[in-house]
């Protein structure tokens, strides 16, 4: 620590530059992590907010809820702790009074008010009739909708009134509008046929005893029970996005380690004769190696810390439409991995130090 810190103080410009590079890489890594996480969340927050364990789809839907259609009578063939029907459909809506041609891509979710899929309202009230919806709060934050606005479906004449906002309700990167399962029938099939004792739904969402879907039984071979986590990773595009970002971030972390490893190695080579003299004086390789590792650690920690502050600052200035979301756990893990790998990069230099022959350094 003594050697490491005094050297940083002595060669300020050099080490500030290295810290600068580390800061930029850390900033980029944190920023990408935030974007990746935000985008991943936008695919799934609605599903996460259900706190469900499994979802039941017709087998021929192949895990894709957009392709799923079944009768609500199937609910009786399912035995689970809690069951809820769900109708899901992508739609385009327009604000009634909007002069601009502003169209919104949304997901309609039809549910029953008394079942567990009913979301928590953070502003306004729950829907009571088939002409009311509660919508994701991002639409309010982006200034697209406000309370008591009317929206109309582009595909039909139906209009709905926005009566409430809910948090964390996005599905496949679209904001969700929750409405009644009856309204879903109309959205899906147009004018509802009178006097049907059967409702069409997309899926049955279940909660299982002890969270184990093995405890759920289905008395219908046409239906397939999928764990919620599998359902999420099978969402169209979700896995591709997550993997793409994960690869970018991990390569960046490795590149950061290589960059700092090279910097420290070059600096070590410059100091070979100084290290040699110190070894001749009987200062052990271990002490010198520790010093280099501590130095790498200090430089990385400061660079990563600045990157963290930079990311936090940027987050405050970002528009709401950017899907940036930071997650404390991810940031800690990414920081720790960057630190560890940077220190591993410094091990190259340790080898060099151990190999320095003090005899050559002084003759």
């Amino acid at each position, binding site marked *: 620590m*003594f*050697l490491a810190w*005094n*050297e940083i103080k*002595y*060669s300020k410009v050099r080490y500030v530059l290295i810290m600068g590079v580390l800061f930029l890489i850390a900033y980029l890594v944190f920023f990408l992590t935030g974007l990746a996480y935000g985008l991943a969340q936008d695919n799934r927050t609605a599903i996460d907010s259900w706190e469900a364990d499994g979802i039941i789809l017709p087998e021929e839907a192949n895990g894709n809820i957009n392709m799923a259609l079944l009768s609500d009578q199937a609910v009786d063939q399912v035995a689970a702790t809690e069951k809820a029907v769900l109708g899901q459909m992508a739609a385009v809506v327009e604000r009634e009074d909007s002069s601009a041609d502003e169209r919104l891509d949304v997901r309609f979710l039809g549910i029953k008010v008394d079942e567990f899929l009913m979301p928590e309202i953070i502003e306004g009230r729950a829907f009571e009739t088939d002409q009311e919806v509660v919508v994701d709060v991002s639409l309010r934050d982006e200034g697209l909708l406000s309370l008591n606005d009317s929206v109309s479906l582009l595909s039909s004449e139906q209009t709905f009134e926005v009566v409430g906002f809910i948090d964390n309700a996005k599905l496949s990167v679209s904001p969700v509008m929750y409405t009644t399962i009856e309204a879903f029938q109309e959205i899906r099939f147009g004018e509802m046929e009178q006097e049907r004792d059967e409702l069409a739904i997309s899926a049955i969402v279940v909660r299982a005893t002890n969270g184990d879907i093995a405890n759920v039984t289905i008395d219908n071979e046409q239906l397939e029970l999928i764990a919620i986590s599998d359902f999420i990773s099978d969402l169209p595009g979700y896995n591709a996005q997550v993997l793409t970002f994960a690869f970018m971030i991990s390569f960046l972390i490795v590149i950061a380690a290589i960059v700092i490893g090279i910097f420290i190695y070059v600096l070590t080579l410059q100091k070979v004769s*100084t290290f040699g*003299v*110190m*070894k*001749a*004086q*009987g*200062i*052990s390789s271990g*002490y010198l190696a520790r010093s280099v590792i501590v130095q790498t650690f200090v430089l990385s920690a400061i660079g990563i810390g600045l990157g963290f502050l930079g990311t936090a600052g940027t987050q405050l200035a970002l528009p709401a439409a950017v899907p940036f979301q930071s997650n404390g756990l991810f940031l800690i893990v990414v920081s720790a991995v960057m630190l560890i790998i940077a220190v591993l990069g410094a091990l190259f230099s340790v080898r060099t130090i151990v190999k320095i022959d*003090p*005899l050559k350094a*002084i*003759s």
Partner: protein
Amino acid sequence: MKAIEFINVERTFKDGDKEIVALQSTNFSIDRGQFVAIIGPSGSGKSTFLTIAGGLQAPSKGEVKIAGQAFSSQSEKKRSRTRFSEIGFILQASNLVPFLTIKQQLQLVNKVDKKKQREEMLELLNQLDIKDLQHKYPSEISGGQRQRAAIARALYNDPTIILADEPTASLDSEKAYQVVEILARETKKKNKATIMVTHDIRLVEYCDQVFEMKDGVLKEKSPDSLSSGQGS
């Protein structure tokens, strides 16, 4: 007990299939409080002698003892530790760490070994007349001052032996005299055994004993033969 003792020490190198003898079988010893010089032309084996004394290379035959303890036969790690505690090096160019101030050079010794009690840092710098330079980096002071700082660094850990390899090589003669005078004075005062390798015959007047190295053979010279040798 001798501070350092060479017992039949020999050093040979392989050059292809030829064997080159850098140091012929040598017996040599000095006591604490003695200041000896080793003179000789370059390539005569002076450096080999000094680096074996400092444990930076092992002898091919024979043994080196420091304060009666086996030294050259120790493991690399133990030799490094002995080097730190028993030997102070003063090298040709400065052996100071470029990014530490003069005071920090001494503090580093404390950091590496925290247990040993050492003399007052500033007092030592004061004795060598470099107390005012304690916050300067080596690059900010003169060559003579740097060598005095190097002496302070070597003395600070209270070693048994001081090995000085051409300590005056980069100094003009006035500064060279000053540095050797300080070295002689501190050797007596702090009771060290000091070996100085030099090619500058004029400096030996401060030494108790002078040896000459020639073709790997170390011979003691009487002060008379030196002065006559200088005259011829």
